């Protein structure tokens, strides 16, 4: 579960910016939420709060049972293991192949070799990249890279997946596949929060839409999508 209570985020540099003002938001386990808004509205700042890259200036943030306004530095890594992150620039490690990029997450969080041997092929199969397991990121298309990143985010079986404009650097036609993948993962019970500014995607898939403007939530409702609910 994700909960923000009266959250303000103020950046001191650049003359001082109020990136978020009095944000209240509650997302239950298993939901799929689109967050939309213009550039500079505060979408990335909101996600950074949820991953504890930044702490709120005031207000409270709870994610997966952790109180992120108060969490100790030592506990942050363990908290982060309960979430998966996806970025618009993929952030794959260039000198590791697809398999190792996914396995990397499990290795650096002390998962057993046995777990790695089972889990990596499973998630690669889910994103339909089994046959590209030995390929290096440079040789992949944007869509494929993002599927590797999704596999990586899902590898540790997180309760929550957070995606910041995951389709921004991808062929528009392939964007739908990316969202479909995230929807599939959501059906397994994982909460998904996806930031986008592609209105076509939001209109197509529908669901809960949260809209930000100048650091405030101006819209938070369920919208019927054009797609049949698969």
């Amino acid at each position, binding site marked *: 579960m994700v909960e923000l209570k009266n959250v303000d985020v103020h950046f001191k540099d650049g003359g001082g910016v109020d990136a978020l003002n009095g944000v209240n938001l509650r997302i239950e386990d298993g939901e799929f939420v689109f967050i939309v808004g213009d550039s500079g509205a505060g979408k990335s700042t909101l996600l950074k709060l949820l991953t504890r890259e930044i702490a709120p200036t005031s207000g409270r943030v709870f994610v997966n049972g952790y109180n992120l306004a108060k969490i100790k530095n030592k506990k*942050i890594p363990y908290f*982060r293991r309960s979430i998966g992150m996806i970025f618009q620039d993929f952030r794959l490690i260039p000198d590791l192949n697809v398999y190792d990029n996914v396995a990397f997450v499990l290795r650096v969080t002390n998962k057993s070799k046995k777990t790695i041997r089972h889990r990596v092929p499973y998630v690669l199969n889910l994103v339909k990249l089994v046959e590209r397991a030995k390929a290096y990121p440079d040789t992949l298309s944007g869509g494929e890279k993002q599927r590797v990143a999704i596999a990586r985010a899902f590898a*540790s079986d997180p309760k929550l997946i957070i995606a910041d404009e995951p389709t921004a650097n991808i062929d528009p036609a392939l964007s739908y596949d990316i969202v479909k993948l995230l929807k599939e993962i959501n059906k397994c019970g994982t909460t998904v929060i996806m930031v986008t500014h592609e209105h076509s995607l939001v209109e197509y898939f529908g669901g809960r839409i949260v809209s930000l403007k100048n650091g405030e939530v101006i819209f938070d409702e369920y919208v019927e999508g054009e797609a049949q609910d698969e």
Partner: protein
Amino acid sequence: MNNFTYLIKQGIRSVWKNRFMSFASLCIMTVSLILVGMSAIVMLDCGIILDNVSDKNEISVYLNDDADIKHIGEVLKSNTLTEKVDFISSEEGLKKMIEQYSEQKELFENLPYNPVPATYMVTINDIDKMSTAVQQFKAIDGVYKVNAPMDFASFIKDLRTTFTIIGIVLIAALGTVSIIIISNTTRLSVFARRKEIAIMRIVGATNSFIKTPFFVEGLFIGLLSGILSWFVTKLIYENLFNLFTQNLGMWNALGMGDILQFSQIEWYVLAACCAAGAILGAIGTVLSTGKYLKV
């Protein structure tokens, strides 16, 4: 354990990825350790030579033919610096000399008069006071000449002081340089792996997990330069040793016969080089990761 080998592998991988800097810091650390190690050994050797020379801290006091032998003996004995006094009459002295130069026996046997003066061999109790003793003995009435191994002793002493100073300066300077270069290596290594580190953070790797490979890297470079410097020191020292001991007779006379053979100390030197390398490597990395890997 699986985790441990992973971290070690990552550390070695890091050395390889960053091989130019790793090599540079390896070279600089190795040279530093060689210089420090060599000065330490030379210091030890100077100590040994000084001990040997001290054993021979005998001053020869030659007397005039008409000197009051007995009185001079009393004066020498009563000196506070004196430990032991041995008298060698001119006849005994000549006999000794004939023994020493047995090949030219005839030369000595057919002398019209005995050229060897009566001599007191005075052992003094403090080698540092040798020059004072020499001054005092020279002043005694009836003393013809005073000979002391003083010059050599003071030369060795100066040498030891010089090497001690060089050693300390080297340790301070090269230690600092080594730490700086290692921490720079780590910094570049952190930079080269920044993407990986960012991802590790995102997926919840702990701080110590992120830092350990860099620590391994610093330790590895340190240990490797320890071993290398030991090997080079061994080569240099053994060659120098052979050079000296070829003229063993002469060096023996100067108290250098007993200087350390490398095999006597090689394990200590290896341990010291590796320990110094590892400590420098560890300090360098810890400084650097503390600075450039903040959470």
